[in-house]
C-alpha cells in the first residue's frame, strides 16, 4: 500500500476515530465542541488500549489479536458517536444554521487576528516536527518495543534491546504499554513502520492535541473574548518554542519527543487532567461526567509508569480541594473511585511483579 494511503489511514485512526468516539462520553454536556469530543475520544482510546493490552500481555496473546480487538472496540464506539450525532442533530438545523458554523469567506473576518497568528506558530511547529528529526536514545526501548512487537507478532514478550525472548520482562514498563499502542496503531495504518509513526505522525497529532487542550483553558478563562483566547494560545505556543532552557521541562519534552509516553503524559495528559479537574471536581454541577475523570486516570497509566503516580496525585489534590469546598461525601467517593485504576496497578506492581 502506498505511503500516502498509510498516512491517510493514520489520520483516520488518530484524528477521525477519537473525534467520533468521544461523542458518547459527552452526551450529558450539551452542546459540546469537536475539540471536546476529540479530547474525550483520546481518553477513551487510551483507556481502551490499557484495558485490552494488560490482560493480553498476561495471556501471551499475539499482537494481531490485540489489534483486531482494539480496532473493533474503537470503531464501534466511533460509529456509535456518529449515529448519536446524526440522531441528535436538531431537525431545524438546516442550511441556514449549518452555514453559520461552516467556513465561509466572510467568516474569516470574525476570526481574531491573534488566533490566526497563534495558529501560524503552531503550524510551523507541527511542520517542524514532521520534517525534522530528533534522536533520543530512550527510543531504544520505547520505539524498538513497538517495532519488535510488530516484527514478532507478540506483545512485550520479546526483548526490544536484543530480539531474544524476555527472561523477565521489565516490570517498570509492563503496566504502561504505550509502545504497544504505537504498534497497534501502526498495524491499523496498513503496517506503517512504527518508527515512522512515532517520529512523524505521533508528534504532529499530539502537538495538535496539546494545543487543543490549551485552547480549552482559553475557552474556560475567556469565554467571551476571542482576542484574549488568541493571545493566550499565541503566548502558550511561544513559551513552548523557547523551552530549550533545560531538557527536563515539559515544554522541551513536548517539542522534541512527543512520541514517548512520558512526553505525552507531561505535555498533553497532565494539562488535560488539570482542565478536567477544574471542570469536574471544582464545579458545583460538573461540566463533564465522572467517567471521563476515571478514564483520564486510566489513560495516565497507559502512557507511563510515572503516570500511575502523577495522575492520582493531581486528582487527589483536586478531590481534596473539592471536599473542602463542597463537603460532599458522594463527590469525594466518586473522585477517589476514579483514582482506583492507578491504585490497583500500583498495588499490583508492589505485590505481584
Amino acid at each position, binding site marked *: 500500500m502506498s505511503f500516502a494511503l498509510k498516512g491517510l489511514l493514520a489520520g483516520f485512526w488518530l484524528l477521525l476515530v477519537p473525534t467520533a468516539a468521544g461523542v458518547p462520553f459527552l452526551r450529558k454536556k450539551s452542546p459540546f465542541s469537536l475539540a471536546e469530543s476529540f479530547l474525550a475520544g483520546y481518553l477513551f482510546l487510551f483507556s481502551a488500549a490499557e484495558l485490552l493490552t494488560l490482560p493480553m500481555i498476561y495471556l501471551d496473546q499475539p499482537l494481531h489479536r490485540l489489534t483486531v480487538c482494539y480496532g473493533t472496540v474503537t470503531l464501534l464506539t466511533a460509529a456509535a458517536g456518529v449515529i448519536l450525532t446524526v440522531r441528535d442533530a436538531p431537525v431545524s438545523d438546516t442550511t441556514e444554521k449549518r452555514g453559520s458554523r461552516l467556513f465561509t469567506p466572510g467568516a474569516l473576518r470574525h476570526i481574531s*487576528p*491573534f488566533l490566526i497568528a497563534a495558529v501560524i506558530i503552531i503550524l510551523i511547529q507541527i511542520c*517542524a516536527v514532521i520534517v*525534522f*528529526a*530528533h*534522536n533520543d*536514545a530512550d*527510543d*531504544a*526501548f520505547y520505539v*524498538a518495543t513497538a*517495532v519488535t512487537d510488530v*516484527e*514478532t507478532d507478540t506483545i512485550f514478550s520479546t*526483548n*526490544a*534491546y*536484543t*530480539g*531474544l525472548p524476555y527472561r523477565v520482562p521489565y516490570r517498570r514498563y509492563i503496566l504502561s504499554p504505550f509502545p504497544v499502542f504505537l504498534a497497534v496503531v501502526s498495524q491499523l495504518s496498513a503496517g506503517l513502520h512504527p*518508527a*515512522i509513526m512515532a*517520529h512523524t505522525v505521533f508528534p504532529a497529532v499530539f502537538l495538535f492535541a496539546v494545543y487543543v487542550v*490549551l485552547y480549552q*483553558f*482559553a475557552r474556560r*478563562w475567556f469565554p467571551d473574548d476571542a482576542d*484574549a483566547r488568541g*493571545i*493566550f*494560545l*499565541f*503566548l*502558550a505556543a*511561544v*513559551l513552548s*518554542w*523557547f*523551552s*530549550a*532552557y*533545560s531538557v*527536563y*521541562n*515539559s*515544554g522541551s519534552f513536548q*517539542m*522534541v519527543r512527543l512520541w514517548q509516553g*512520558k512526553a505525552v503524559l*507531561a505535555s498533553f495528559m*497532565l494539562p488535560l487532567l*488539570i482542565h478536567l479537574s*477544574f471542570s469536574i471536581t*471544582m464545579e458545583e454541577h460538573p461540566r463533564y461526567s465522572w467517567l471521563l475523570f476515571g478514564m483520564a486516570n486510566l489513560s495516565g497509566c497507559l502512557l507511563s509508569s*510515572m503516570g500511575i*503516580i*502523577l495522575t492520582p*496525585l493531581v486528582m487527589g*489534590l483536586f478531590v481534596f480541594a473539592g471536599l473542602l469546598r463542597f463537603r460532599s461525601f458522594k463527590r469525594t467517593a466518586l473522585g477517589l473511585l476514579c483514582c482506583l485504576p492507578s491504585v490497583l496497578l500500583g498495588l499490583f506492581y508492589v505485590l505481584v511483579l
Partner: protein
Amino acid sequence: MNAVMQWIATMWGYYWGDGFYQYLFLAAALYLLIFRRKEKSTRQILLYSLAVLFLFLCPLTAVIIRACIGDSVYWRILWLLPTAPVIALAGTQFLKARRSRPAKALLLLVFTGVIALSGEDMFRSGNYYLAANYQKVPNEVAHICDVVNAEAEKDGIEQITLAGDETVASYVRVYDASIFMPYGRRKKGALTKASSTLYQAINAEKPKYKRIAKYAKKAGCNFLVAAVPEKRIKRFQEYGFYEIGHAGSYVIFQLEESSIS
C-alpha cells in the same frame, strides 16, 4: 533535613536549567495575585500551583514521593506545575485590558521578546536535523542496517546478530527489529559474559580491537560495527571478520562463514 533541601534545590535547578522561566512564572503569579485575585480562574490556578509547589518543596512530601518515583526523576513532579498556562494567563489578562488591537499586538511582540530572552529557541539549540531516512534514525545506523541486510540476503544468512557501540546499539532495532543484538543500550539485555565484555570493549575510551573481535565472535555475532582506524582493520581479520562496508566513521564487518563455530 539540610541534605533533603539541598537535593530538592538540585532537582529544581535541573528542571529550570539556564532559563528564566521560573521568574516569569513568579512574575505572572504575582501579577495575577495582586491585580486579578478576585477572578475565579486566578484563584483556582494559583491555589493549584501553590499545592504543587508545596508537594515539591516540602521535605516530608518530597521524601515520600521520592520513595515512590525514584531519586533521579524527582524533577518530574514539576510537570504538574502549569507553567505555560499561568504565564499565558497573566500575559493575556494584562493585554486584555488594552483597548486597541495595535496596542495589544505591540505589547504581544514585547512579551514574545521577553519570553525569547528568558528561554532558549528549540530550533536553534541543535535539537533538530534533517534525516535521510523515513524512520528518522541516525543516517549511519540506517546505512549499516541496509548494508548488513543486503549482505545477509546475498549469503543466505537467516539470522543477523550485530554488535555495535552505544549509538548503534540504541537505534539498530528501532530501524529494523529483524536484526538481533547481543546487548542493547547501556548493555541492557546482555545475557552472557561475552556480551557484557564485548559491550565494555567496544565502548571503551581506548578500544582494544583484538578484544572486540574476539568477544564479538564469542557472543555469536555474525556482523560487527566499530569505529576502527584503517590500519587496525587487520586485527579483525585475524578473528574472521572481514570488511564489507563503511558508514560514516564506522567500519562494517562480517564474520567469514568458515569462522563460524
